[in-house]
């Protein structure tokens, strides 16, 4: 089974969404007829206002929710509740895909940083020494060795984000799903986060970043798709094209209009949250 998944994944796309819809209990829709194919090595940014279905999309990709209708495949295999109930598929899938939750208090459920980072490796069959080696290496990469015995409630927002990333890095997945990774970070942590994502992309990892932070999307993504407020995927393309489409971004509530009363005239123009997309940046991996 494991080998199947590996050979299949060498050629198949990482994720294939085919007319996928999802509704929460009580029929409150979260995603409507989504079609999307993601290839290995891509860095996709999913843009959308709050409540547009970005988080749901990531949870579907991570096999935590399952489509209400439509088909979803991961590494060429159907990603269903039954498939994940099977131990070998579950093991292999969890090993390859890591999800960063939006709320760090949800993701950090262990009593200490060390336990947190060791949690995922401990679910594998690795030996104790191997687990410890991986934990130490993840702590080093994220430069949080000092925090290893700290309790999560004694960490700052930026530290929590690093620990959450380390808890995924210790498993070294090939696909990273990041839910609002830059929310609540100070500018320094933000630029550090951008570097981290870019490094992962350069190392050949597949990244999916759900965000409403256009500057993050611009810096880390080589493909952008946009959800509108009726939970539909309305655009999919290269960052330069999408991020310069002011009308689209305004429609999807990603930029807002400012009035500038001080000009005396009712002059209105749209404000992206960030620097203009035409601004030069080192785009990772083309």
């Amino acid at each position, binding site marked *: 089974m494991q080998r199947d998944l590996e050979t299949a994944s060498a050629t198949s796309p990482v994720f294939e969404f085919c007319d996928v819809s999802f509704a929460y209990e009580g029929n409150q829709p979260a995603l409507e007829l989504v079609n999307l194919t993601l290839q290995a090595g891509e860095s996709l940014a999913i843009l959308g206002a709050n409540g547009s279905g970005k988080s749901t999309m990531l*949870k579907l990709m*991570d096999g*935590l929710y399952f489509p209400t209708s439509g088909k979803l495949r991961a590494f060429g295999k159907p990603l269903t509740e039954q498939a994940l109930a099977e*131990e070998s598929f*579950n*093991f292999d899938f*969890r*090993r390859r895909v*890591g*999800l960063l*939750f939006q*709320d760090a*208090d*949800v*993701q*950090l*459920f*262990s*009593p*200490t940083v060390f*336990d947190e980072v*060791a*949690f*995922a490796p*401990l*679910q*594998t069959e690795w030996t*104790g020494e191997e*687990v*410890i080696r991986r934990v130490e290496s993840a702590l080093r990469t994220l430069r949080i060795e000092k925090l290893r*015995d700290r*309790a*999560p*409630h004694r960490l700052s927002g930026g530290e929590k984000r690093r620990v959450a990333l380390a*808890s*995924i890095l210790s*498993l070294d997945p090939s696909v990273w799903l990041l839910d609002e990774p830059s929310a609540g970070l100070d500018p320094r942590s933000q630029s550090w986060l951008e570097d981290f994502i870019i490094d992962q992309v350069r190392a050949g990892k597949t990244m999916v970043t759900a965000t409403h932070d256009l500057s993050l999307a611009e810096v880390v993504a080589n493909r952008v798709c946009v959800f509108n407020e009726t939970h539909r995927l309305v655009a999919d393309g290269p960052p330069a094209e999408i991020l310069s489409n002011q009308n689209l971004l305004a429609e999807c509530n990603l930029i807002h209009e400012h009035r500038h009363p001080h000009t005396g005239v009712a002059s209105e123009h749209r404000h992206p949250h960030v620097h203009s997309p035409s601004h030069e940046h080192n785009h990772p991996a083309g």
Partner: protein
Amino acid sequence: MSKPIRTGIFEKTLADLTHALEQSLFAETISRQAGLLQALDPRVKIISILSLLLSVSLSHNLPVLLSLYGLALLLAWLSSIPLDFFIKRVWLFMPFFTGLIALPALFITPGPVFVSLPFGLAITKTGAVTVLFLLLRVSTSVSLGVLLILTTPWTALLKALSILRVPEGFLLILGMTYRYIFLLLLTAEDMFLSRRSRILGRLRPAEARRILAASAGTLLSKSLSLSSEVYLAMQARGYRGQSRTVNAFQMRSIDWAWGSGIIFIAALAVWLGR
């Protein structure tokens, strides 16, 4: 009609919540200081404190109990726990709780009269002894518990509980509970602070109760929704209902020596206090 009360309820609850946070912070500080008990393997510490607790509980002899309390004081001193804090923590609270409970036993326990008091009251000898037993036993037990808590980082204590054959699954829950107690403490603190800032003047008890119940209800809803999210986060990292931990503890010869020494003392105390 009940008369309006001040908003003291919120202050009281807030103070309790803050106190719990401070207490854990204080314990963390002490547990990181150099000292005798801090240097020991937490598993040895749990076993030795438990055996001392048991010997306190089994001893039927006042001088032996007194020596065990002396031992607790000595251990506190050797573990750089401020002695005034250590004694106060036990004896400020004791007279109000155990002392008050035990007081009537001085008079109503039948036995030879020890001291006669006016109004036909008399302290009996048996009464005095029994009250001393209770006070010494409770204070020594509480002191030993405080020793364990103050000298062991709680995460180490948690891991060390596995030596008591507590199942891994139970330890996982215990660790998560401890972790989320702090999240809920902070949430509750925020809730009360924001309520308090909006309350002007006095509050009727019924109103205060309603607000408290609303806070409790909100906290419960939050706990339940958080638990579903946390479950997803655990699943995302491969959790399927089994848990495993890596144990980094290493027994050194000092741990063995200490452990056997304390168990010997405890056994001796039981034998002497038979």
